[in-house]
């Protein structure tokens, strides 16, 4: 079994990332009003939606895939739940099940094409994005459905002193634990690492790589669907654009969190860490006098620097 090499490396290899994260954290600390319990918990609350997607994305990436359809899947799931609630008179449970079913199905279709047809993951999930966006528009009939508060309790928050503990944070916590245990402590997870690291070697060693890869896409689809429910819980509305661009946020979170786009390396918790870090940088820009015009640029720079530092740190590995 080819477990990724260098999994227990020296701390040295992590040093650049640690320094960089430290620098960001220092900036956060120096930003007036950031390090208050209220604001930090607010950042975690906001990050939880992307965090859930990033968990799904990291599972796919570790398995050697790539999922560009998460944002669209999020939108479709939110739309299906919204139509169920508004037009069909469903209860929240039925709507949630339907939404998760849709997301899982999109993931399975992606998985079938990537794992069995052996279509390129990038192209498959890119075309799936268009298909799913088109479906979302049809499901909604071009409308925007607003005022849907059925899932509001999921985002309800409890104030503990200045801190705000919300349902979204709890859900992210549960997803993180399930994802981490699934990837680290089960045979399934270990086989997925092996598949992503070297599919051919894994297959020769008796790992059923196709099935695993399909399952990894299904997990990502489910995560996106859960994201759709969390979206409804936070914003009470769904339209044909809901979730646009979230696939890139989740991929960025994974990259920043040290999940390899080549497969086989990284961890679910890393992805969540990356997501929190990016959210913190965004919040930092909003909190300072730095004009909003620089926000997009800064985000891009942060991701690029992280990717570069990670690549430099890994360079020694191959020698």
């Amino acid at each position, binding site marked *: 079994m080819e477990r990724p090499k260098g999994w227990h490396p020296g701390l040295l290899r992590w040093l650049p990332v640690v320094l960089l994260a430290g620098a960001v954290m220092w900036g956060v600390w120096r930003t007036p*009003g*950031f390090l*208050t319990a*209220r*604001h930090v918990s*607010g*950042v975690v609350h*906001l990050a939880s*939606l992307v965090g859930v997607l990033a968990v799904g994305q990291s599972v796919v990436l570790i398995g050697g895939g790539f999922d*560009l359809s998460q944002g669209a899947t999020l939108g479709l799931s939110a739309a299906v739940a919204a139509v169920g609630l508004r037009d069909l008179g469903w209860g929240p449970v039925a709507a949630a099940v339907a939404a998760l079913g849709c997301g899982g199905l999109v993931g399975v279709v992606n998985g079938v094409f990537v794992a069995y047809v052996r279509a390129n993951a990038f192209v498959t999930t*890119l075309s799936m*994005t*268009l298909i799913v*966006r088109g479906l979302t*528009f049809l499901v909604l*009939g*071009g*409308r*925007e459905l*607003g*005022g849907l508060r059925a899932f509001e309790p999921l985002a309800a928050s409890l104030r503990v002193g200045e801190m705000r503990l919300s349902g979204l944070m709890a859900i992210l916590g549960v997803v993180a634990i399930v994802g981490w245990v699934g990837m680290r402590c089960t045979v399934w997870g270990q086989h997925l690492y092996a598949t992503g690291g070297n599919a051919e070697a894994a297959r020769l060693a008796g790992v059923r790589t196709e099935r695993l890869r399909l399952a990894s896409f299904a997990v990502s689809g489910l995560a996106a669907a859960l994201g759709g429910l969390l*979206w409804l819980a*936070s*914003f*009470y*509305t769904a*339209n*044909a*654009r809901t979730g646009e661009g979230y*696939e*890139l946020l989740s991929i960025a979170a994974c990259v920043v969190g040290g999940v390899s786009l080549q497969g086989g390396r990284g961890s679910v918790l890393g992805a969540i860490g990356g997501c929190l870090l990016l*959210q913190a940088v*965004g*919040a930092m820009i*909003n*909190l300072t006098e730095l004009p*909003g*015009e620089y*926000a*997009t640029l800064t985000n891009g720079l942060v991701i690029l620097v992280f990717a570069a530092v990670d690549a430099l740190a890994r360079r020694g590995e191959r020698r």
Partner: protein
Amino acid sequence: MRNERTGRTGLGAGMIVAVVAMVVAGCGGPDANPGAAGDSATERAIRIGAVLPTFGHPFFAAQKRGMETAARELGVDLEVRDGKDDDRIQLEQVEALLSRGVAALVFCPRNQDAAVRAVEVANQERVPVVALNRRVNGGEVVAYVGADDREAGRAQAKALLEAVGPEGGKVLYLLGTQGSSPQVERMAGFREVIEGCPEITIVDARFADFRADQAKAVMMAWVQRYAPGEIRAIVAQNDEMALSAAEVARDEGWSEVVVIGCDGTEGAFAAVRSGLLRATVLQDAADQGAKALRVAVDTVKGNPPTGDVLTPLPVIDQANVDQYRPSY
């Protein structure tokens, strides 16, 4: 990256379709089309083409519905095309509709400058063009139908002045997608009015992409930076952002803050009723679409409009919310 790729694929495929269509339909020259229409049982229906910026946004979906309803009432054939938020695709759709022999074109450009070429192409074919919702900076259109975004910005400013009164105060401003035409125009209109009012100061303006999630992130930083009661009003360039910001403000105990949106969505109407929003500016998309179609049909029948058709932009507040219906 993603959009650009899809755009290219779509462009390539569309180009082939357009070329084939031109070869097939264009062989007999432009005169072939009226003749063909005449053959089919005494020119049964006028065919109108329409190109919208995107079907993906509910505003344009409502415009489409308005046009389709009007087309049924007038008994004309209507073909509406999706510009997929891409200037080049819009041009291609216009060319495809022209080669299909439409008698007039309703055109809602994605970008006022990039749309010039499409209008010129239609001008060469002598097909009248009605500009819907956004003006075109060139070519010849028979009329402009809609209410421009600059006017919407002015309307927001007036609603703000009315809400805060002579003592004025500090205002936070939520902007849409950086550089998009509604962002630029609504801001220009808003600033134009506010500049003459020293009692109002815009203390911060942030881009939030016209999106609820980004508005929420910005607003969470704002509640950290400013004390409750310090900010007199929040103005957002659309309702989606306004509603999201208003929720955060309410949760954080900014009970006195005035929130003003724009567009007049269903959600905003409900929020105006409940008091969460002070006001919104209604842009009735379906009505605009229907009016544009009527102008196009009238032009084809030989009664071109005498000037632009400006649709009203009423400010919706608690006093008049029940007299209007939401845009989408």
